[in-house]
């Protein structure tokens, strides 16, 4: 009897310990990947405040790499600004990382198109290289245990309903 219950218990254990991820079809351009551990991400934001991804576990993180010279990044950023207020009721933290630009370059761009965003400054680009995005812009979705579960390639309108619903479903 004991041995017959064991598989069931194991199944229940798996069900309740596996991070809950989206079950709906993925929106365009979002790929499910195999949960590699997110690399270190310790940077100061443009206001000089320190941030460490490893200390912010327990919820999903939207980690986005961009540069102001990258046209798709420029076109995408306003949609991120619009999306964030739409997800205040979600369990998502937004981590916006600028790749290898100066504060002046970032401020002069974001001040116009997304003034509410406070990006982290990867001033020498080395953190971005460690994360190994396939290109700029790139967005990683990191689960509460610190593993990358989804990757979004290229630019998109993040405030479209399909993306907002998908991000809201991450719990």
């Amino acid at each position, binding site marked *: 009897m004991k041995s017959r219950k064991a598989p069931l218990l194991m199944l229940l254990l798996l069900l309740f310990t596996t991070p809950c991820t989206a079950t709906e079809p993925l929106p365009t351009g979002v790929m499910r990947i195999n949960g590699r551990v997110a690399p270190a991400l310790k940077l100061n934001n443009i206001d000089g405040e320190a941030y460490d991804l490893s200390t912010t576990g327990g919820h999903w993180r939207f980690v986005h790499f961009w540069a102001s010279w990258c046209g798709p990044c420029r076109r995408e950023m306003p949609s991120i600004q619009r999306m964030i207020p739409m997800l205040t009721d979600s369990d998502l933290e937004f981590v916006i990382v600028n790749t*290898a630009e100066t504060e002046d370059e970032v401020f002069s761009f974001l001040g116009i198109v997304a003034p509410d965003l406070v990006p982290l400054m990867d001033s020498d680009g080395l953190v971005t290289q460690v994360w190994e995005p396939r*290109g700029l812009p790139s967005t990683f979705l990191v689960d509460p245990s610190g593993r990358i579960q989804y990757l979004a390639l290229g630019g998109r309108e993040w405030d479209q309903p399909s993306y907002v619903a998908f991000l809201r479903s991450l719990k």
Partner: protein
Amino acid sequence: MHTQTCAKYYAANNNFMRNPRQPRLTARFLIPLLFGMQTVVPCYAIEKPYPGPYFENAQLLMILIPHTPEQMAAFYEARGFPKNAIELITETCFITVHIENKGRQVTWLDTANWRLISNNRALAILGTDYWNRKWEEIDLPQANRSTFYWTQLPAVVDLQPDEPVGGNIVLPGTVRDFHLEANFMTGRDQRGEKIQVNFERVACPRQADSQ
């Protein structure tokens, strides 16, 4: 119209700049990808009229956008590159390349399968190793190296269906025009149909050419 710089042009018209050193989804990603991914349709795809010579069929779109040294200098100067780096950049020929996998299977960009010929002699792309040596010689700041790196076409990418890739290839500045034969393997194991694309007499424009 070629009034914009290479990377500015590319950046303004394409989905995203590619990481040259992280070329492929490794095998550990492929199985989950097969089950989990939807098509990777570029939301900001490049649109006609294409800004340079192109090839397009049901499987592949490939566009070449040559740029003058002055265009490239303007772009990198605006990114804070020092004068000695600009001099190295303007000694060469920059071609922005845009590729989209329009087929339903993986298509492999691998520049090792490309043949470039000028004046009946084979040409080599000035790749990451070349530039890293140059940047070491002039002690280019890391931030500039990173920006330059993100503007280059990667050497190898396993393009998923509908996935675009873009960036610059750089040739020696002595090249005035060249022939490019670009071969693309298809299929996850690269054993599918080969796609061959030929571009004849692609120019490396000088400033006067664009005026």
